[in-house]
């Protein structure tokens, strides 16, 4: 289960703010004081002690500066030095999610447990059906030996008293592709080869043990320590992320030093156009269905985990791609920074020469706070290009298919279906479509349930954000009526 807002998530925002604050204060010279400031001597620790808290905070700050815990070669290296190193690097490190091993509480090794409801019955089907002989009777009750248990769940199925319960490992349960697994000590590790960077583990870990390499410091450095022109490309989900008019958010971005701000929704209009043309072509060729391709986590999932689905995935590029292409054509020397709700966009950007950096809404929020910018006090600024209503609707589940449907109307039959959230079950469903075909011919896949407005880089409440997006959509014009 995803816990949209909780202490662990809140901590992430706080750390990002601290890192920005430290950048402005003295370029990280006193960064090592932050973990101590945040967990002073008399603080009531949420773990074993404040000293462990501080050690974990250090790893969180490292991640915010662009280093994973695994990159630590010398434990004595100070945050100050990581900060300095971050300010020196020319290119940001490869995007990556990682587990802070000392923060992972190594949640339950065996996922099944016998509760007090066990009556130690005569039939003992659990003992008999356990394929690993992991169950023995202790004091008249069944007991599972966690070292032998392989979490198959047979015992739960056969117990007539429902005395066996399944204990989830939140991160493993959330990961749709089985990319996060325990090592022999029960601590989780992410497999970079199979991870689709969806961020679900990060959102679901109740200990906040999962971090992601940020590019925040790199962008701050570009803005303040170079004379490069830095341009923010705002993903359509931005509307609704801050409780202000979008034009004021644009003004605030300019105030913290972005030279220009462009709207990715304008790129979404190109995606809709190309995808509609591709859809018509494929349907005329007699293909049974096509899926969207603008969610990078889904795109990668199809590539790595559902190869049989690949021929059905649209080849049209994402709104980010087209927006960046347009931007670099107009301003070839600028540094482009995509700002969005998504962690998978970071890996998508690695293959896109026109996108230089990727930040999340949470990270720009932290930039505002750390730089002392109140959006409400900022001048209103306009986007250079106007986007259509359909382009603005991309971040809501159903938006992409809706935009394509709007353009193919009357040309071919259009039967849309939404896969709202890439769960384990939905991956199975997609596999089935790939081999057995599907009733509907346009399948929109969004990895995050609810669409991009519920992405791991968002800060607003998805419900509220959705309302704001809907209002903004209503103010746009139909793409068909645009020149």
């Amino acid at each position, binding site marked *: 289960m995803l816990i*949209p*807002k*909780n*202490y662990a*998530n*809140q901590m992430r*925002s*706080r750390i990002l*703010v601290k890192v920005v*604050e430290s950048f402005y204060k003295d370029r990280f010279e006193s960064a090592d004081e932050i973990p101590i400031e945040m967990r002073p001597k008399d603080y009531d620790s949420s773990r074993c002690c404040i000293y462990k808290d501080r050690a974990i905070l250090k790893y969180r700050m490292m991640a915010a500066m662009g280093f994973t815990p695994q990159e630590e070669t010398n434990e004595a290296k100070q945050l100050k030095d990581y900060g300095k190193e971050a300010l020196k690097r020319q290119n940001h490190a490869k995007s990556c999610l990682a587990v802070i091993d000392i923060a992972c509480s190594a949640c339950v090794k065996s996922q099944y447990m016998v509760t007090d409801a066990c009556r130690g019955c005569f039939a003992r089907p659990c003992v008999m059906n356990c394929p690993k002989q992991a169950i023995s009777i202790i004091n008249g009750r069944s007991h599972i030996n966690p070292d032998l248990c392989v979490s198959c769940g047979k015992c739960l199925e056969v117990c007539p008293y429902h005395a066996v319960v399944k204990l989830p490992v939140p991160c493993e349960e959330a990961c749709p592709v089985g990319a996060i697994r325990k090592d022999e000590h029960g601590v989780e590790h992410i497999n970079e080869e199979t991870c689709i960077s969806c961020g679900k583990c990060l959102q679901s870990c109740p200990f906040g043990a999962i971090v992601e390499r940020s590019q925040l410091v790199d962008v701050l450095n570009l803005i303040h320590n170079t004379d490069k022109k830095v341009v923010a490309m705002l993903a359509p989900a931005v509307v609704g992320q*801050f*409780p*202000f008019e979008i034009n004021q958010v644009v003004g*605030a971005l300019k105030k913290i030093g972005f030279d220009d701000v462009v709207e990715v929704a304008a790129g979404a209009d190109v995606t809709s156009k190309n995808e509609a043309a591709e859809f018509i072509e494929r349907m005329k060729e007699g293909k049974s269905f096509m899926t969207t391709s603008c969610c990078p986590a889904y795109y990668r999932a199809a590539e790595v985990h559902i190869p049989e689905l690949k021929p059905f995935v649209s080849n049209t590029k994402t709104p980010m791609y087209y927006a960046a292409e347009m931007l670099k054509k107009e301003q070839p020397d600028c540094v482009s920074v995509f700002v969005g709700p998504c962690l998978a966009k970071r890996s998508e950007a690695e293959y896109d020469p026109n996108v230089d950096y990727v930040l999340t809404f*949470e990270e720009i*929020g*932290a930039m*505002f*706070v750390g730089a002392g*910018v*109140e*959006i*409400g006090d900022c001048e209103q600024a306009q986007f250079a290009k106007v986007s259509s209503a359909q382009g603005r609707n991309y971040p809501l589940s159903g938006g992409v298919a809706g935009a394509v449907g709007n353009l193919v109307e009357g040309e071919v039959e259009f039967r849309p279906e939404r896969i709202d959230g890439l769960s384990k079950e939905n991956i199975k469903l997609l596999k089935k479509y790939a081999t057995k075909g599907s009733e509907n011919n346009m399948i929109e896949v969004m990895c995050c349930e609810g669409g991009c407005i519920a992405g791991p880089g968002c*800060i*607003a*409440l998805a*419900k*509220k954000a959705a309302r704001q997006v809907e209002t903004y959509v209503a103010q746009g014009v139909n793409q068909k009526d645009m020149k």
Partner: protein
Amino acid sequence: MEKIQVKICAGTACFVMGAPQIQALEFSTPEDLADKIEVTEVRCMNHCSQGKGYNKGPFVEVNGEVIEEATMEKVITKIRDLIAKEEEEKC
């Protein structure tokens, strides 16, 4: 009985520091409180601007009393306290 005023700050600092979590109150008010509170979203209340005040955000005001580092839990506890106090005064 007058409704208890819950003001959730939605200034930039409070919002980034976690105000959205408390905004959930607008969507899922505990049943017994539903007709006793009035939730409003307000602009920066200037609690954040003194020193590094935003580090103590998000701020919520319940009948004028300021809650620092507010969470859903803290806000609901405060509301319940106020209701209990009012009822006591009635007797």
